[in-house]
């Protein structure tokens, strides 16, 4: 196995930054830059077989028969498995409980797994998979979520996954001013550059080890064990390098067949997904239809918000219930709304399954409520930023769910910061030929047709699981021979957890050399890597464990000198007392001992939303305000985001460089959702599952990102006072871009991604030009 071959540390030339608040570089940065960091696709085992998965070409079909005879008889084929070869049952309560490993009687989405093959060569495996004869009776797909309510049930559980009717305040309240709108959000794909891959190795005890880029190793282990009909102890998930995760990894349609094939053949089995399979297999962001009616008084204070939110969950439930809770709870945004009636549904269709992609639920409603705020401002003749400031939420205000916001909520401060930041200059002094216009450097952009617009988006997300999820993480800290080791099953998904863990231990124990052990399920569970959980719960657990080690280290000294351990401090490998009388080195104090401590972190509990959508469902909230400046070629409808000014509520900056990188990555993902990223599925069929058809933002599409303010108002209940930083910029940036395009064109812009025809101005009375006159 090559999983122990994690990165070698960069050569030490000058003192590296250490501790919380410093920009400690990630340990694996060098290896990742040089291309030597091992990902799951790089794994190898002696005598391994190659797997391939047969996927349905139809979005909805009845399976009449599956004939694997030809495939089995092909030379080099070692096993062909279908639904008949899955010994276990689904794990109740798991997010994949309604989803079979292989389709048995009905296919519910394009790309659903039907059979899997293990063979001695990847080509043989793929050819054998193609040789499995499946007789389908093609059925009419249900692809419009609005049709799903009346359609025949697509699943024994029915088509309605969840319905939340949120009622808050007086349902009969009305405002003097009413604005309405209907909005559609497209299907964003997490589009990881590293496609799904994994290796399964059978164990002598009849169990199996899965080497996969999992972001929830214990959850994946439990799911796999149930399906394999094994006790959880006999399945081990070893986490390999995760090639970036903005959604859940790995997809069960890869990992479950992998282990089954290894158990069946008794050989290691490897699978690497093609780009097409990757797009077909993993979950996407929920396409959403939203209808809104905002009521306000003549001063622009919100009176009531009515909304209907329909999430297209695709064929299986996945995390749609959580996404709907977020969408409904944050449907009014970070604004004070005394009366709200929000109705949300998540329904099944024959579209590809939707699931966890960061900011799910919150992103869709943000685009809609900010569009409504723009409409309201226009109708009232108030500046859009001013209207938002008049309604901004603050600590102590009440969410439409009835929950009081107890954490810092510096919404007005964030918005003020981005509004007051100087606008980017027009390129007056550079020759016209050098302007980067919409359409790009070799595009057709013409300065005379370009209009500039400024818009705002304020996003909010919850951190940690909601509605009573038991959020807990366990971490162990070991110190031996001057080196500290953190053992915690929190997966480094690119969010920077391993760097944070090193910083925490450096701060608490004064030891610079901190290693973070690779993750597997022999360690205690730390939960999934999403919603900024690990900074909070796993970071908190690491801190507690490190503090326990510190006490063990200092107790004998403190006892010897008759003072409390609090009066001793550790820095630069030395232990000194508060008065400077005592001074000894850590090595001396350790005296060759090995110190271990394990601790847990479990934040205060939450409760599920009740029948009226009321309840204290969230542990903490994070906010972000973005001001977008865009240029639009109003004849071609091409849009270039010139600049995004970001102000974010971060609680406390733990690693400035890493934080800036997370914010920049997040807003850029949001720019993709705003302008280009939409996995199209006409009649349920995934079209263009490749990076030519699915346009991720390139460096030319990414705007100048100005982080103008990081509000460090510590969240007292969070470890270190820090808030999760990755998701909320993704949520706010599409809304801000759409708002700016609205300002530039005067068009309503009620659909994301923004199609060129929605940004075209056909009448001549458009606002002022960008030209140099």
């Amino acid at each position: 196995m090559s999983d122990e071959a994690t990165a070698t540390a960069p050569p030490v030339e000058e003192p590296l930054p250490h501790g919380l608040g410093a920009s400690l570089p990630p340990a694996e940065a060098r290896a990742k830059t040089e291309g030597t960091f091992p990902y799951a696709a790089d794994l190898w085992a002696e005598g391994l077989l190659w797997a391939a998965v047969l996927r349905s070409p139809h979005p909805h079909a009845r399976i009449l028969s599956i004939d694997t005879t030809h495939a089995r008889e092909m030379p080099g084929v070692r096993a062909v498995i279908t639904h008949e070869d899955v010994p276990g049952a689904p794990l109740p309560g798991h997010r994949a409980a309604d989803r079979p490993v292989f389709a048995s009687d009905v296919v519910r989405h394009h790309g659903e797994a039907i059979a899997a093959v293990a063979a001695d060569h990847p080509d043989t495996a793929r050819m054998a998979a193609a040789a499995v004869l499946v007789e389908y009776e093609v059925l009419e797909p249900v692809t419009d979520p609005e049709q799903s309510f009346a359609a025949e049930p697509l699943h024994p559980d029915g088509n309605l996954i969840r319905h939340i009717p949120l009622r808050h305040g007086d349902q009969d309240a009305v405002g003097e001013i009413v604005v309405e709108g209907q909005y559609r959000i497209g299907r964003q794909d997490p589009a990881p550059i590293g496609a799904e891959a994994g290796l399964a190795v059978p164990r002598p005890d009849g169990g199996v080890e899965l080497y996969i880029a999992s972001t929830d190793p214990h959850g994946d282990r439990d799911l796999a064990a149930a399906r394999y009909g094994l006790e959880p102890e006999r399945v081990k998930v070893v986490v390999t390098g995760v090639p970036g995760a903005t959604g859940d990894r790995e997809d069960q349609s890869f990992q479950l067949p992998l282990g089954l094939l290894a158990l069946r053949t008794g050989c290691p089995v490897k699978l690497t997904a093609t780009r097409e399979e990757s797009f077909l297999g993993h979950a996407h962001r929920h396409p959403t239809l939203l209808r809104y009616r905002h009521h306000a008084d003549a001063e622009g204070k919100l009176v009531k918000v009515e909304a209907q939110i329909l999430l297209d969950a695709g064929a299986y439930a996945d995390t749609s219930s959580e996404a709907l809770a977020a969408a409904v709870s944050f449907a009014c945004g970070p604004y004070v709304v005394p009366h709200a009636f929000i109705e949300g549904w998540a329904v099944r269709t024959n579209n590809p399954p939707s699931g966890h992609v960061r900011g799910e639920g919150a992103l869709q409603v943000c685009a809609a409520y900010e569009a409504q705020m723009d409409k309201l401002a226009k109708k009232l003749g108030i500046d859009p930023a001013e209207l938002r400031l008049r309604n901004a939420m603050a600590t102590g205000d009440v969410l439409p769910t009835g929950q009081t916001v107890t954490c810092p909520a510096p919404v007005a401060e964030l918005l003020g910061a981005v509004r007051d930041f100087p606008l980017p200059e027009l390129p007056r002094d550079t020759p016209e030929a050098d302007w980067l216009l919409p359409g790009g450097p070799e595009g057709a952009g013409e300065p005379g047709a370009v209009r500039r617009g400024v818009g705002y988006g304020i996003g909010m997300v919850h951190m940690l699981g909601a509605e009573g999820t038991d959020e807990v993480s366990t971490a162990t800290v070991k110190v031996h021979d001057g080196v500290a080791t953190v053992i915690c099953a929190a997966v480094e998904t690119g969010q920077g957890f391993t760097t944070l863990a090193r910083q925490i231990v450096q701060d608490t124990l004064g030891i610079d050399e901190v290693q973070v052990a690779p993750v597997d399920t022999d360690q205690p569970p730390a939960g999934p890597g999403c919603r900024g959980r690990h900074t909070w719960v796993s970071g908190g657990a690491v801190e507690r464990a490190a503090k326990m080690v510190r006490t063990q280290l200092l107790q004998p000294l403190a006892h010897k000198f008759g003072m409390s351990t609090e009066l001793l401090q550790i820095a630069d490998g030395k232990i000194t007392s508060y008065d400077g009388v005592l001074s000894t080195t850590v090595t001396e104090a350790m005296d060759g001992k090995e110190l271990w401590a394990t601790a847990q972190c479990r934040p205060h509990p939450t409760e599920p939303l009740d029948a009226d959508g009321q309840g204290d469902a969230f542990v903490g909230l994070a906010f972000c305000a973005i001001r977008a400046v865009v240029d639009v070629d109003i004849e071609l409808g091409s849009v270039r985001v010139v600049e995004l000014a970001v102000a974010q509520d971060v609680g406390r900056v733990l690693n400035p460089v890493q934080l800036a990188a997370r914010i920049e990555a997040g807003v850029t993902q949001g720019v993709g959702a705003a302008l280009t990223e939409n996995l199209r599925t006409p009649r349920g069929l995934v079209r263009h599952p490749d990076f030519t058809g699915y346009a991720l933002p390139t460096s030319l599409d990414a705007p100048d990102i100005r982080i103008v303010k990081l509000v460090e108002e510590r969240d007292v209940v969070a470890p270190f006072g820090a808030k999760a930083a990755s998701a909320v910029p993704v949520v706010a940036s599409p809304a801000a871009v759409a708002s700016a395009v609205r300002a530039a064109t005067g068009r309503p812009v009620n659909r994301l991604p923004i199609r060129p025809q929605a940004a075209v101005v056909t009448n001549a009375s458009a606002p002022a030009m960008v030209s140099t006159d």
Partner: protein
Amino acid sequence: MTTHATQAVTLPGSLNEAVAALAAMPAAVPVAGGTDLMASVNAGLLRPAALVGLGRISEIRGWQYQDGHALLGAGLTHARIGRPDFAALIPALAAAARAAGPPQIRNAGTLGGNIASAAATGDTLPVLAALEATLVIAGPGGARREVPVSHLLAGMEMLSPGELIGFVRVPLLHAPQTFLKATGRTGPGRALASVALVLDPARRGVRCAVGAVAPMPLRPLEAEQWVASLIDWDGERTLVPEALTAFGEYVAAACIPDAAPAPDGTQEQLPPAVLHLRRTVAALARRALGRALS
């Protein structure tokens, strides 16, 4: 990890050797930049039994002059075509080459490959159509035949097995040319629509081709003739804005016509996306002519 095992790769040093290699291995596939072919191979869509690599044929990697024409080697890369010395010769082709994808693709992808792939969105194709370029095709035994590029793209004449595109003959017009491309984003992307426009003062002609809206570049011949008749070729060579706008709409209507009226005389409205495409073509054609005449 490579999952494809190609049996034989031949790297001929001349065009005739390459043709001979193809004759010797009829199942072999020629590959130049490989930006389309290898993507298909890696996706498992193609398994060529053998490859004839064209990268070492130096005679097709440059260009030469021939009685008022440039004879462009089919192996010229987009990156080479995009450089200023080439842009001084055939500005529209250089502009199209610079717009044709990210640097990695432009460094590898060739002019001949763009023609042979004949993708609807091939960026150099409308320029070659507007220039009325001719292909010099190499066949067995040193044979050479010439085919207008539009004939090949329209499928009127095809490459026979064993033939290779050797050169592209393009007239040197010594007059402004433009290539404009609309894409869905600021970064490199496939054309939603593109317009190539060249002025030919010697023949008092304007030639225009619209790319990406049909399987092959479209020539709006009537619009070309109409606008050429408006231009004062011996004078300022300028047009009033209204004429530019009318030209754009003429081109767009020619390339994206209204649906034929139903028997009962009713006219079906084009879908919004098609109307947008038509507006895009009109704007591109108007801008292209305006820039050529400015």
